[in-house]
């Protein structure tokens, strides 16, 4: 009988002393604060952004996979908070600005305006998109010259967060300097642009269908005073439907006749809907500047200021100056970048 007690006591001990790990059910300790990288972490040796951009041309204008030690350091100039930039951010140093194709949503949560960022370019690809040099990952599909970094592991071994700092002051760029290499990809202010009564947007009969197939594409490209009535910076899915159902695009050429031919007897169109980017054209002096805005931007459906549309007022933009096949293009970060000549906001 004694033996039974001993065995059972041992068994009970075995049962209760088995550690309760790996489970913790108490109050969780606060996490570690994130590490803030400094120049020392990179041996104070940096390559300038301009030098990195030049690697593309030096490689015969082909995507160049950076080898060896190459760390760039720059301040964040963009935010994807309002959605006009998507999965990408721009950084700039005193030599140039460049897009880093990080490939995550909500980058503004982790990379603040003005924050210093270190990018270890070794193993990354420098490529071009219609005249804009960017840093991304190798894209074997050939669809683009660079792909997004996208996976957190890839991002974490190439992009390092440094100290917070004040947002970068935009450089005022004149008409003559619009195509200057140093200004491309930089946070700039361009002043006193005049609305050019010209829009461009590319829509699809079936947005889920093949977007490269011309039998699926509808080009809405209009120069003239009415612009098919597109008076917003872009159009969300709802806005697109609104424009479409109001008959704004009935006259537009479509794969089968005109858009009107897609109208069914009950008034609905056999055309799919999604958010569409719109280019609104402006003139800076004699130079065309297209302000291209994503249909997913929160200000997509916001109307351009009426006085600007009417041509009675000019507009000043602050944002990222880019280049699209040799033409000046402009990316707004948000509507705070749309001001009057005196610097006051068009929108509040």
């Amino acid at each position, binding site marked *: *009988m004694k033996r*039974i007690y001993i065995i*059972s006591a041992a*068994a*009970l001990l*075995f*049962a*209760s002393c*088995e550690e*309760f*790990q*790996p*489970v*913790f*059910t108490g109050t*969780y*300790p*606060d*996490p*570690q*604060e*994130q590490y803030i990288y400094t120049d020392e972490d990179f041996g104070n040796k940096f390559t300038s952004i301009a030098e990195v951009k030049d690697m593309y041309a030096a490689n015969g204008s082909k995507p160049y996979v950076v080898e060896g030690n190459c760390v760039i350091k720059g301040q964040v100039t963009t935010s994807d*908070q309002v*959605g006009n930039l998507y999965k990408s951010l721009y950084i700039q140093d005193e030599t140039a600005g460049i897009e880093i194709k990080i490939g*995550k*949503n*909500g980058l503004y*949560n*982790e990379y*603040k305006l003005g924050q210093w960022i270190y990018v270890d370019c070794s193993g990354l690809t420098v490529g071009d998109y219609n005249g804009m040099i960017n840093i991304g*990952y*190798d*894209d*074997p*599909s050939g669809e683009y010259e660079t*792909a997004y970094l*996208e*996976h*957190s*592991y*890839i991002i*974490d071994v190439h992009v390092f967060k440094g100290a*917070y700092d004040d947002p970068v002051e935009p450089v005022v760029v004149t008409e003559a300097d619009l195509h200057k290499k140093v200004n491309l990809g930089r946070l700039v202010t361009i002043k006193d642009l005049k609305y050019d009564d010209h829009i461009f947007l590319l829509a699809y009969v*079936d*947005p*889920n*269908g*093949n977007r490269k197939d011309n039998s699926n594409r509808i080009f809405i490209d209009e120069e003239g005073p009415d612009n098919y009535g597109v008076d917003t910076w872009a159009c*969300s*899915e*709802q806005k697109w439907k609104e424009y479409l159902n109001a008959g704004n695009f009935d006259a537009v050429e479509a794969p089968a006749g005109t858009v009107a031919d897609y109208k069914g007897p009950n008034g609905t169109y056999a055309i799919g809907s*999604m958010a569409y980017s719109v280019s609104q054209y402006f003139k800076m002096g004699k130079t065309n500047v297209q302000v291209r805005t994503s249909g997913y931007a*929160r*200000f*997509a*459906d*916001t109307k351009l200021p009426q006085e600007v549309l009417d041509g009675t007022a000019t507009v000043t933009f602050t944002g990222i100056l880019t280049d699209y096949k040799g033409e000046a293009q402009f990316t707004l970060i948000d509507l705070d970048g749309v001001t009057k000549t005196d610097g006051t906001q068009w929108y509040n």
Partner: protein
Amino acid sequence: MIKKVLLTIAAILCSIALFAQKNDWGGVKGTVVNRAGRAPIAGAELVISQSGEEMASAVSDAEGKFLIENLPNGMYDMTVRASGFLDANVNVTVEGYVKDLIFVGMVPEQVVTEVDDSNFAEFDMDDSGFEDAPSILFDSNDPFTNIASFGFSNIRFKNRGYTNESQDVYLSGVRMNDAITGYSPYSLWSGLNEAMRSKESTIGNEVSDYGYGGFNGVTNIHAVPSSVRTGWRFSALTNSALYRLRLMATYASGELDNGWSYAFNVSARIGGNDWVRGVYYRNFAYYAGVEKKFGDSRRLSFVTFAAPGQRGAQNASTQEVYNLTGDNMYNSNWGYQNGKIRNSRVRKTFEPVTFLKYTSTPSDNLEASAIVLWRTGKNGYTALDWYDASDPRPDYYRNLPSYFYMENEDFGRLNFEKAAWAKDAWVNDIPEYTHLNWDRLYNINWNNYDENGLRRSKYAVEERRVDQNDINFNASLKWIASRYFTLTGGVNYKWNRTEYYKKMDDLLGGDYYINIDQFAERDFASSPTMVQNDLDYYFEHGEAQVLHQGDKYGYDYYAHVRNANVWANGAFDLGSFKADLAVEAGYSRFWREGLVRKGLFAGLDDDGNEIVYDGKVLTTYDQLTGKVITSKGNSDISSFLTYSAKFALQYHFDGGHRVYATGGYFNDAPTFAQSFISPRTRNSLVPDLTTVKTTSADINYQYSNNGYNFRITGFLTNIADQTDMMSFYDDSQNSFVNFAMSGIDQRHLGVEMGFKLPLPVNGLSLAGALSMGEYVYTSTPRMTMTVDNSAEIVYNDQPVPYWSSSPVFKKTVVDGETVYETDLSGDPVIEGYKKHYVPSTPQLAADLGFNYRTNSYWFFELHGQYFANSYLDMNPLYRTDWIVAGPDGVVTPVEIDELTSQEGFDPVFLLNASIGKSWYIDRKYNFGFSLNLQNITNNRAVKTGGYEGTRLADSETMERYYKFDSKYFYMQGFNYMLNLYFRF
């Protein structure tokens, strides 16, 4: 018949004894009872022997009574045997008179083994996506359920393929199935094994004394103090499957001389397990009951119990993730927070149940009872919530190698190098990427300052609350009109109001969160009203509510359910022939009451006018009915009148043979959970709601005699007109959609068999169970799909043509390429159709093993099991015409093959064993242990369930859609459970 003969003999012997009147002769009498609950045991065989020679025998009558007389004075051994109980040996001294032993208690086999239903009930994987219940019910006297109830639970076996909702679970006569979902609510009393041990069950269509039941049996748990085993009991249990330690204490007074009885049961279950990280228990449970007997005929009992606590949940992942981690038990719910494992999905419950029951037995042939039962409290389930930030889940598909590279070029995933990085992160188990990264979430919140210097949380933990208030009134009656006819019946009324809402559980280092709908914001960013979760608040304050910890947000609504039913059963007893006829009628009403006005579905204002804001009409109308779509206030009331009838016929033959058949027609109202299109956002009901109609019949043969026990059953059940409701992101629409499917029919046809065969060695028996069936879908359901954010109808009343079967094409493989053969007109050749099966249960389950019990209370069991024909739950979206056709609208055999066919799981062989021993000390103290070993061969490749994805992958050719990977649950490998108990 034997019984009668024996009783007659006993009576004759008795009268002889009377004549004898000698003082050197005597006898014994008494009542054979179940030691637990003192329920009489009929048909127990009693053998009196002296020095191994049989002297006399008897069989207990229907009330358990026995009498053995005409025995010479002396010492005897009396052996009592009854099916389902351990043999009992009693020393009897005959001293010249008929000694009244009063009770001869028998110990149910399961009590000694401790491997009983109460333990497996805790092996449920509730939070892992499995149902919150043991897979089948328990009846220790039935050779099939005796094995299946415990032995088949790990594989998630469903009895006859039926869903959990079809099992009626009663507590002291009140049907406890969840008013909203129909699920059986075992979690309410998990951990109270002792208090809830005493129960009765029926199988299939059988009629119960406690309620009408359905086609999948009724279990009634007595739960009153007088049903709890008298005395003290302490136990400690450790197991590797669920939690590290369970401690339990129980005391029951039994019925005291003054008519009072009381009982309590408390337990704690704590710790993690050996298999799934992040899963833990911190659960407690209590039960307290008091009962008073007034006179001989009336009893009043009051009971309250609850199982408060919290536990971390498990999650299913894709096979790719399991392969990368090398672990089919990988759990994506947890991550490290400053080195500590933290689970994001924690079930937190405290739902006390209280009842008051009155029972009256004014005469021997009449028993009536009335009960009022109240369930209340809170039930929460935490989850991560995030606003305009990247998806934090580690196994999100964009974090996996397959998102970057697929061999099939049509996926357009060609970046092998990125896939290699992703693979590297997983294979090397770098915790920042393979688990939740709490540190990162905190840091994002900490650094997200607004213009006021406060931090708006981008990530938070929400708690989804389902708080029930459920009141039941119930009265029942049992009237033994004559020895030929007994009538039982009752009336029930259930009042349920369940509040669904979200609560801010943890801001993860931030200061506040904002009460807006980010999915609405995605689509309607420019509308300040449509993004509001609480539009009235916005109107009043001009901005969305700023949320702090503990605030309600997101959605908030009541589900109101009222159920009433009346039932009666007439039992006819003509000796060998018995018949039951039962009928039931029910009335069920339910509706939704929105407590907040959702911006997307503003509805009408309090005066019934359209709501206008900033010159825009916010009120929206249903495209089909033209009715206003509302979110606040009461929805339309759905009401259903239901009626059901069933019968049972049985005939007893001499020698323990019994043949019986049952049949029934059942008409069940749909549940609240199946009836609303998007209950979190609006009052819209699923169109054309109707009752579920079931016909069920079975025929059975049972043999039970001399320790032999055998049952075989054939059953056929047709279930028609079921509905199902799903919400998911549809890539073909680029939006969240609600998918309502109706007219789902299924057929369950099968055979069930169980046996127990005593072998020549004393105490050794061979036992087995077999369930073999075909549970298939038989209809082409109809579906209606609406956009969640706008109620826009995408598809109205369309068929789901590939739901019940998919065609099998004639094909050949040429140089590794599959070629579909075509006929002369160029159409693919169809060889036949493959049925689609009711998922998530093996349709073939078999068990065979040895049980060995010694007179010294040792027991050993060794069982082998085989399971096959288990199938994956199907996503109906992949079975629709337009998804099969793909973006090009052209249906090809390969699309049909890959999208519509149903995945089957591999067959499984498992080996389980148990060992246990019980010691009695001074006849007063009882000490014992049991050790249960499951899956001894450590088979870790056993899929127990899962579900298909809902999303679609792009194709470069734009000719077709690809399915997303399915997610699976696996069974754990080798597990042990050791239980030690002490009782006095």
